[in-house]
């Protein structure tokens, strides 16, 4: 279970309204894509779930409960860049999650506990196809490999929600296709909720089971910061969906 709900969420920075009146229920196990033009609050939306940002009004709930306004292990993240630790090997990067969990003071595992954690880490590294690169440092990996590592690292905590912030934006088309082929089966297998922010419309439609578009509906040329972005489209992309994918039905909640 890992359902997310946004109840009347507003985000404002001083006078500037970024998101306004977001009401959204995301069912457990959804693969949600978030699209929209630059500056429409996609990243802010993601940060609300991450806990890096607090709504000015309203609340975000994970499985019906509010969560503290700071990142936690139940919500994993993969950023576009800088998601992996340059001072640890591939194996060390994945192992770190286990070490954090089991040794509160030293954050280092030894002996049998370490062997067990290593086994889990190796399995995850295998799953993302990096087994030959276990002992390398991230600087020796390609961009695509670094993103695979970031995913393996996030999966170590078995997060309820996995957040992807333009995870494949910096990759070349071939590598991006490989990453798509990697993430979809992982999502099916692990039954987590994924929220992915992306600029790539094809990717958004191709991977997700649901897609929302954020945009500013009203504009005041004299005060562009006066109106925030809302959910302009909310599409169900599953095959048996009642909403036709290309019908572009306006989101009910926003009316």
């Amino acid at each position: 279970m890992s359902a997310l709900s946004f109840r009347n969420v507003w985000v404002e920075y001083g006078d500037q309204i970024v998101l306004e009146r977001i009401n959204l229920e995301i069912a457990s196990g959804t693969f949600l894509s978030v699209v929209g033009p630059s500056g429409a609050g996609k990243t802010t939306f993601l940060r609300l779930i991450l806990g890096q940002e607090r709504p000015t009004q309203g609340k975000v709930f994970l499985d019906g409960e509010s969560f503290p306004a700071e990142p936690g292990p139940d919500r994993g993240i993969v950023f576009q860049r800088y998601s992996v630790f340059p001072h640890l090997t591939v194996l060390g990067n994945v192992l770190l999650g286990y070490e954090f969990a089991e040794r509160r003071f030293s954050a280092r595992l030894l002996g049998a506990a370490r062997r067990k954690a290593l086994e889990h880490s190796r399995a995850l590294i295998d799953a993302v196809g990096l087994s030959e690169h276990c002992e390398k440092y991230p600087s020796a990996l390609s961009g695509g490999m670094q993103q695979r590592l970031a995913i393996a690292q996030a999966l170590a905590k078995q997060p309820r929600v996995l957040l992807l912030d333009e995870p494949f934006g910096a990759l070349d088309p071939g590598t991006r296709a490989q990453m798509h082929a990697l993430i979809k089966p992982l999502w099916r297998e692990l039954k987590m909720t994924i929220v992915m922010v992306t600029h790539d419309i094809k990717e958004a439609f191709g991977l997700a089971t649901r897609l929302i578009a954020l945009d500013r509906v009203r504009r005041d040329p004299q005060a562009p910061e006066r109106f925030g972005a809302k959910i302009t489209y909310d599409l169900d992309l599953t095959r048996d969906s009642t909403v036709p994918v290309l019908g572009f039905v306006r989101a009910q909640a926003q009316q």
Partner: protein
Amino acid sequence: MTRAMNIVPPRGGRILLAILPFLVIALVYVIGSAERRAANPNDKLLPPVSEMVATTQRLAAEPDRRSGEYVLWVDTAASLQRLVLGLGISAAVGLVLGLAIGLLPVAGAGLGTLIAVLSMIPPMAVLPILFIVFGLGELSKVMLIIIGVTPMLIRDLALEVSAMPREQLIKAQTLGGSTWQIAIRVVLPQIMPRLIKCVRLMIGPAFLFLISAEAIASDVGLGYRIFLVRRYLSMDVILPYVAWITLLAYLFDLALVHLGRKAFPWAFVQEPR
């Protein structure tokens, strides 16, 4: 024609080029020294190399007639002990405070300005205070190095921490790390290479403070000796001592480079992507 900026000397040539300026300086010295000796056999300013070697031998290999100590080694040991203590303590304090200020907004707000102001105090200006408070012994000399070096280390390391990508710290939190765990497993190892770089840069200032303190109040040490024999214009002692101090500083620097490369290989991996 190849541009000057694209001419790269081969390895052997590079070593030769590195040695060349030293040879030129030595040659100029030898000629100058010979000229002055020819004009005045009692010249003290540029003693010939043979004289400096003899003096160095006397200081390094023969026990002093008054104290029975091997002067050069006793001086070196005393100075190095002060230097290493001073730099070591500075590095430890700089690391802890720099990390705290860079990572914890509360510490940054509370201590950031204080450190910025403290780092503007000229260390030599507080030397009298140190002598008054800590006496003329070892402590005041070590303290001078610490006061001179630490603020810069703190500020630089705090900047290094705050320059870390925010994404990394967020990621570490989503992996379940506490503040302490993230500090020791994510931030600390990543600022260690920077610490080594800073300490390398601070070797010069540390020696400056050390020799100043030794010159003013001490009874042993490299700086003490130089300022002692200054009264007799003993350039044959001063010049080898200066060369020896320079060599020590250079070796210290070299050792830190190697330590950095050995201990933090990830900071130096630059394989093509």
